[in-house]
C-alpha cells in the first residue's frame, strides 16, 4: 500500500485543535461527556476510533506509547493501533507500563499502579451510562443536567431483588467528583477501584458516539452501590498459572474439551515482569 504524506499522528491540525479543546473542557468538568466532531478514521468504528483520535491529539515526538487490548500488548487490535502510530507519528512504543507516557487501552486498567504525569486513554463504545436504561440522548442529557440519577439506582436495586447481587460486572457506573455519573468503559468492575484518586490523567474517547470525557488525577471516583449492598470487587479463587499472581485480573483459558481450564493474568506486561523476577530469584 502506498502512503502519501499525512500530518504527524495522521490528524490535521484543525481536527487536533478541536479535539484538544474538547479534552480541556472534559478535564474542567470531570465526568461530563463533551460532544466533539469525531472524524472518520481509517479504521472501523468499534475498533477504537475515539481512543485513537484522543491519542493522536495529545501525542508528541517525545512520548512513549503503550497500547493494550484486554490487558495484553499482543492482541491483534492493540498491535494494529500501535503500528498505526509508529507509522504516522514515528513514536517510541513500549510494553512496559511504567515506562509509557501514554497508554491507550481497551477494557482494562493496567495492574501496575500508574504514576503522576502518565495519561491513560480509554476506548469507549457507549459513553452514556444511562443509555441502556433510557436510549434517548434528549432524555439522558436532561438527567445529567439535573443530576437526576434515580433511574440508575432503580436498575441496580432491581438486580439485587432478582439475583441477590448487583448484576453489573463490567462498565460499572461510577460518580466522578461528586457530580456526574460516568461509564468507565467496559473495564471489569475489578478495575473500578483503580480509577479513584489515580495519579494519572484518564481520558475517554468515544468516536462513533462523538464524546470525550475525563477524570483528572487525584479525583474521587465512587462506584454506585447501596449501604446494605456495597460495591464488591470481583475475586478469583485461582492464581495465575504463569506467574502465580493472586492480585491480578485473570483470563480463563480452556485447555481441553473435558473441563480442563486454567487462569492467566490478563495484563501481559505485569505477568511477564513477575515471571522474569521469579526466574531471576531462582537463578540467584
Amino acid at each position, binding site marked *: 500500500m502506498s502512503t502519501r504524506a*499525512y500530518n504527524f499522528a495522521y490528524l490535521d491540525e484543525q481536527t487536533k485543535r478541536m479535539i484538544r479543546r474538547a479534552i480541556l473542557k472534559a478535564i474542567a468538568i470531570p465526568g461530563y461527556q463533551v*460532544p*466533539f*466532531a*469525531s*472524524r*472518520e*478514521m*481509517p479504521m*472501523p*468504528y*468499534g*475498533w477504537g*476510533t475515539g481512543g485513537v483520535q484522543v491519542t493522536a491529539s495529545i501525542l508528541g515526538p517525545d512520548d512513549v506509547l503503550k497500547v493494550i*487490548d*484486554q*490487558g495484553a500488548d*499482543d*492482541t*491483534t*487490535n*492493540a*498491535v*494494529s493501533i500501535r*503500528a498505526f502510530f509508529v507509522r504516522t507519528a514515528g513514536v517510541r512504543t513500549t510494553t512496559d507500563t511504567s515506562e509509557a507516557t501514554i497508554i491507550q487501552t*481497551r*477494557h482494562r486498567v493496567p495492574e501496575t499502579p500508574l504514576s503522576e504525569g502518565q495519561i491513560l486513554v480509554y476506548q469507549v*463504545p457507549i459513553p452514556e451510562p444511562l443509555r441502556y436504561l433510557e436510549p*434517548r*440522548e*434528549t432524555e439522558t442529557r436532561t438527567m445529567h443536567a439535573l443530576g437526576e440519577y434515580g433511574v440508575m439506582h432503580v436498575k441496580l436495586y432491581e438486580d439485587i431483588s432478582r*439475583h*441477590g*447481587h448487583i*448484576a453489573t*460486572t*463490567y*462498565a460499572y457506573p461510577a460518580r466522578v467528583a461528586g457530580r456526574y455519573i460516568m461509564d468507565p468503559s*467496559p*473495564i*471489569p*468492575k*475489578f478495575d473500578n477501584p483503580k480509577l479513584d484518586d489515580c495519579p494519572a490523567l484518564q481520558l475517554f474517547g468515544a468516536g*462513533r458516539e*462523538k*464524546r470525550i470525557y475525563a477524570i483528572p488525577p487525584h479525583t474521587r471516583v465512587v462506584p454506585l452501590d447501596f449501604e446494605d449492598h456495597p460495591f464488591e470487587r*470481583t475475586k*478469583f479463587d485461582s492464581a495465575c*498459572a*504463569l506467574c502465580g499472581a493472586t492480585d491480578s*485480573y*485473570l*483470563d*480463563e*483459558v480452556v*485447555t481441553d474439551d473435558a473441563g480442563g481450564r486454567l487462569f*492467566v493474568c*490478563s495484563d*501481559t506486561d505485569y*505477568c511477564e515482569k513477575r515471571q522474569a523476577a521469579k526466574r531471576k530469584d531462582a537463578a540467584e
Partner: protein
Amino acid sequence: MYVAVKGGERAIRNAHALLADRRRGNRDTPELTTAQIDEQLALAVDRVMSEGSLYDRGIAALAIKQARGDLIEAIFLVRAYRTTLPRFGFAEPIDTAAMTLSRRVSATYKDLPGGQVLGPTFDYSHRLIDFGLETEDAPAPTAPAATAASDAQGPSPRVTDLIARDDLIERELAPRPGAPVSDITRDALAFPAARDARLQNLARGDEGFLLSLAYSTQRGYGRTHPFVGEIRFGEAAVEMFIDDLGFAVSIGDIALTECQMVNQFTGGDGRPARFTRGYGLAFGQSERKAMSMALVDRALRADEFGEEHKGPAQDEEFVLSHSDNVQATGFVEHLKLPHYVDFQAELALLRQLRRDGGAVAEAAE
C-alpha cells in the same frame, strides 16, 4: 506447560496478504480495471459516491475494486479518504430546475411541460436473465438518438414549482444568502436536528435502512399519503461563489437523482390547506435511494405538522442515530473483537449466582 498465544503482528500481515490474494482471484482471469467498474457497474459507483458523500467516480470505482465488491466497505474507504481532503467552502445551492435531464417521470400529471422521459430504467424490463451477456464478444448495443430531454423538448420546470404556482403546496423558502450551513461531518449531531443536518444524514444514510423505513410508512407505521410529484435524473452544474471575483463560477457538472414527494395536506385553523413535501437527493442514478429518502424526510416532519407518532420512521433520534452504515457495521462487527475480560466478569458472576442459588436450595431441603 501452558504458553500464552503470541504473534499478532505476523497474523495481521498474513491476513492482509491473504486478502490481497483473494481479491485478485484466479490469475487466469484478467484483472478488473477501475474503468470497467465505473462504466459497467455504474450504479454501484453511484451508491458508493452517495453514501461515501464524495463525488469522485474514479475513487469510488477503486474503492469497490479494493473492497472486492463489498459496497459498505467501499463506502467506508471513500469516507476515510474524504476526511483527509482540504475544504475550500460551500457550493451555491444547485438549481435542479435547470438540470440536463436523462430521465424525468411524474406520477401526478399525465403530461406536463418538458414531458415524461423514461430514459435508462429497469422499470419495464422483464427480469429474465440475459444469457447474451455471458460472452465477452456480444454485439454492442446501440443507444437511440436524442436522449437528452431538455435539448429535445425545451425547459422542464419542476412539478412542485407548478403546484406551488397555484399555492397548493407548502413553499420551500430559500435560505438567506450567507446563512450558515450545517455540516454533520464537522459537528456532532444534536437533537432536534435542523432540516439541513437531517437531509445530510439521510443522503449519507444506508439505502437498505432508508428503504425499509420508507416501506414501513406505506404500511401504516406513519403514513404520509405520498405521490411522486417528480423524479428527475440528469446533470446539474455546481457553482461556487468566489470572493475575489464577486460572483459564482461553475466548477463542473454532477449527475443527480432528485425525488420530490407530494404528501398529505395540512391546513385548518384559518390556514389554507396545502400539500406537504418530502425531499430526496442522491449522486448518480439512484431512484430507490432518493424516493426512500423523500418518504423518510416527510415522515420525520411529523412534529412540524402535529401528526401523531405511529412508527419508527417518524422518530428523529432513532432514524438519524442508526442510518449510517459505516457506524452501524463498525459497532455490530466490533463484537468479534476480543471481549475475554468482560466475558470472564460475567462468568464469575454467573458461577457465584449458581453457588448462592445452590446454597439456597440446599438450605431449603
